[in-house]
């Protein structure tokens, strides 16, 4: 090594930042295995004296959290499917198909990004109430149907498809829809996975809208149920940590599994300025 002191410094700093960053997550897992009341002793323990599944058992047996796990899973999966359905065709069309007003409509869509989604929440709630969709999965799914970001993501990727491929398919007599499903979709696979991962994580982690539209326990998602539960059980640190682990673990694992796709979406998505 040419510069041993500097090498040591850089790597020590990285280790320090890395450990500090992971510490809250480590403690969350550790405390979830502690006996009730153990985390609130002095000095605060890092590891459980005798690891126990009691908190998890309590969450599933008494608080029936399996219901909220199912809600979260179903809503996130449906949101992902819907988002793919709506955004893939639109993103591809904005990139590769010619129609009047295409670029103007696309610019208008990008312009809509400046309006924060919270502005829509009051009318959207009233609308769903009229339709009887408050406290239903459909109500939670409405904001995930189509998104400007999703369309943009797919469009940027679809722009790289060579026109010759599409022309060749049309020459062979394939209609637009066949061209899309047979030629384009396979080429869009990477961005399809990216959009799916981003949507799943986004809807799983979403908080404000589900909090508003899902007020009944039976339909609530994990983050909302956890927030409500943590307001009622301020003292039950260990129980809350088990709930946090159940909420965080699925998305963390999914991210680790599909990290490459997630990062790709992040980099494409951030160049929208």
């Amino acid at each position, binding site marked *: 090594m040419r510069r041993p002191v*500097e090498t040591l410094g*850089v*790597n020590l700093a*990285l280790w320090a*930042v*890395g450990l500090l*960053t*992971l510490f*809250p*997550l480590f403690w*969350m897992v550790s405390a979830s295995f502690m006996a009730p009341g153990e*985390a*609130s002793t*002095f000095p605060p323990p*890092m590891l459980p004296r005798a690891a126990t599944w009691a908190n998890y058992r309590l969450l599933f047996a008494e608080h029936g959290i399996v219901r909220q796990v199912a809600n979260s899973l179903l809503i996130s999966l449906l949101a992902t499917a819907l988002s793919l359905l*709506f*955004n893939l*065709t*639109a993103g*591809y*069309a904005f990139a590769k*198909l*010619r*129609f009047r007003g295409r670029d103007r409509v696309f610019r208008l869509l990008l312009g*809509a990004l*400046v*309006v*924060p*989604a*919270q*502005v829509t*929440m*009051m*009318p959207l*709630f009233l609308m769903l*109430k009229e339709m009887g969709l408050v406290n239903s999965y459909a109500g939670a799914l409405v*904001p995930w149907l*189509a*998104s400007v970001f999703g*369309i943009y993501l797919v469009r940027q990727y679809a722009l790289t498809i060579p026109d010759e491929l599409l022309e060749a398919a049309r020459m062979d007599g394939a209609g637009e829809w066949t061209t899309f499903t047979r030629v384009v979709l396979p080429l869009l696979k990477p961005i399809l996975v990216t959009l799916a991962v981003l949507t799943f994580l986004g809807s799983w*982690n979403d*908080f*404000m809208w589900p909090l*508003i539209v899902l007020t009944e326990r039976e339909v609530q998602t*994990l*983050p909302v149920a*956890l*927030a409500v539960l*943590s307001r009622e059980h301020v003292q039950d640190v260990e129980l809350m940590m088990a709930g*946090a682990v159940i*909420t*965080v673990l699925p*998305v963390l694992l999914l*991210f*680790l599994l599909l990290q490459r796709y997630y*990062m790709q979406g*992040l*980099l494409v998505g*951030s160049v929208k*300025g």
Partner: protein
Amino acid sequence: MRGSAIAWLFVAPALVAIAVFFVVPVAAALLLSVTDFDLYGLAGWHNVRFIGLDNYLHLLQRPLFWRALANTLFFVLVGVPASIGASLGAALLLHSPLARLKGIFRTALFAPVVTTLAAVAVVWRFLLHTRYGLVNHGLATLGLSPVDWLGDPRWAMPAIVLLSVWKNFGYNMIILLAGLSAIPADLYEAARLDGAGRWALLRHVTLPALGPILLMVSILTMSAHFQLFAEPYVMTLGGPAERTVTVLYLMYEDGFKWWSLGPASAVAFVLFLFMFAFTLLQARVARHTGAA
């Protein structure tokens, strides 16, 4: 012309969904914000009256609105630089040719970004506990006295900044890392030949080259910071002494706790206005300083 019609069919589902569930609600929110829609309105539309700009005028006379605005601006003005500073520091460390295990550290530092905000807010509420929290325990081992993070009006918002920096710095870190890798090596070579030291390289080569990315990152980060809600909802309920009531928290309480959906819509538009103004301001400042 047939091709054009088919193309419209490809975009129609998405455009209809965005129109029905975004464009129409935005317009409806504007209308709602000039009515006195409240709990009675919820019972029937005949109880709703047009009241012009009264919601906006009342808002300006509410001390809690100004409190919420001040809290939100504190979070934006302290949180955004802190967050981007942390991202830049981490990106520079990861970019260093001397760093080992880069892939692992990149993943580790990014991990908080994908976690569920409501869940980690619950975790941090306990980490920040005055007596049993490990943050104060850490301070004590450094010889510092404990802080009543979530109970002291002066510390509650800084505590939320702390959580938010931890949760979000990985996101911008990845973007800045991509920016760092795109800086051509010969820029550094040329500066080194001119005798530039490490700080000079950072100040005169790295930061100017990152300029446009930093501008974009700061605009996106700022607009996200204006939308602070879940942290106070889970950790402080807006307290202590209303020091963590944010504009969005106010909108939620007005709209969905007291069912004053008219006034809540006015709050939403005021927030939108502030976000818009700050974005323009930032873009303009950047243009004048030559960052973009």
